[in-house]
């Protein structure tokens, strides 16, 4: 099957596409503070402050 497809980086390719393959990439750890924050933990941490502020 010959197909014009865009690859994972958005480039247009004219490769003979035989399927999509899942790949796992291991690399340097880059912390993501927003992604690791739990809403529940955040709220419990801020609860005293919010109560004192009269919120």
């Amino acid at each position: 099957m010959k197909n014009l497809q865009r690859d994972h980086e958005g480039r247009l390719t004219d490769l003979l596409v035989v399927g999509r393959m899942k790949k796992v990439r291991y690399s340097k750890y880059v912390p993501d503070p927003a992604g690791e924050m739990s809403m529940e933990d955040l709220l419990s941490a801020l609860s005293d402050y919010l109560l004192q502020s009269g919120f």
Partner: protein
Amino acid sequence: MSLPRTLGELRRSPFSEERLRSRHVKDELRDNLVPKLRQGGPIFPGIVGYDDTVVPQIINAILSRHNFILLGLRGQAKSRILRSLTTLLDPQAPYIEGCEIHDNPYAPICRRCRELVAQDGDATPISYLSPDERYVEKLATPDVTIADLIGDIDPIKAARGGHQLSSELTVHYGLLPRANRGVFAINELPDLAGKIQVGLFNIMQEGDVQIKGYPLRLPLDVAIVFSANPEDYTARGKIITPLKDRIGSEIRTHYPATIEEGISITAQEAWTQRNGYKLHVPKYVQEVIERVAFVAREDKKVDKRSGVSQRLPISCMENVISNAERRAIHHEEKLVVPRIGDVYAAMPAITGKLELEYEGEMKGADNVCRELIRMAIAKTYDDYFSGMNMQQVVQWFDLGGEIQLSDTAGAAEVLQALRGIQGLMDKLPKLAVGPKDSSELQVSAAEFILEGLYAHKRIGRSEERVFTAGEKQPKRPEAGFGREEPPARPRRPFN
């Protein structure tokens, strides 16, 4: 030895009247249990982790001749225990041939058999029931009726036989009378409508019931056992308390207490012995799979009232092996060795078995599942590598090293890539894997270390879907989707 075929022969056989007339099914269960206890073997083969908790309570209930209920969350082997009660029944139980409710030849309770014995006497024909035929199970649902469970008046029977509608001979028996002289199990008891629960306790207590307003005396000989979710089994739930009062023993089941118990159950239940390929499931993979269930049972994003069934690690194990098998088939490998990546591939076997709380729903089942797998890997990794210096491996990534692995890539190919990571292969002996072991084993072990480091946030991990190409075509100018773009015209210069 041929079995007696008439009532007369039966009287002269070991199935004598003295022995059988007053021997109820609960006596029979008790009589067969006592020698097993004396022998000291397992009472319920295949039931793991209940030896000190649930099994002694069931034994006490049977010795007490109680009807009993097993209370527990999903996937705690409740139904399996109830089904194994048949191992405590006699190999053959004689009954009057043709009787719908398997009447005791010496004490028939249905009118048809009473009349037959009066008419034929010692020539009354006798048949036998096997233990499996004496076990009736019903999953309770709100639409179960008295007719399903106890019986109904059958007008056609009345018309054909020329009987009054009120005659006992017009009754079409339900499941409970058909379980006479056996074990009747009702799963999820509180789901039965209140009226049916009342009918049940009438039968259990008084031995009589009303069908369409006609009173019917049915002194059935049944061991009734139940299972239920503990949440529903309260007055606030859907149970009728007078019925609750008449159930002799209430026994709580539980999930496996240790990872080892869970692994034993999964190893026993999962379909792992597949023809064609040699399979080796590393211990750490078994532990990760089992820990997913353990972690999920503790996680606040997972609904604790629903529980996390032991079927989760069982199905997960089957899917993990299948993913490894798929890879082995593709690369014509002789040895199937699951990797940690296969646990992620087994998410379809996990997500459906988790009931999520609101916070979990917000995150999405897939994300919750990934998080559970990550936590399970982290705990398992700690068991093997706690305190071990992994700085060399981490440093390789910190200095910009990257590795991309496909879950369908063959072991030889992946091993070559993994060998490029400094210090990684030196850690494998901790998992009892050495350089002389097969590439499948080495890859699986090395991937476990990488996944463990990721689970502890020491290296990064991302999943992506990439195109795979069969052959390269000669370079052509880029074209848009669907239509050919006209050749670019030279821009007309302004002015």
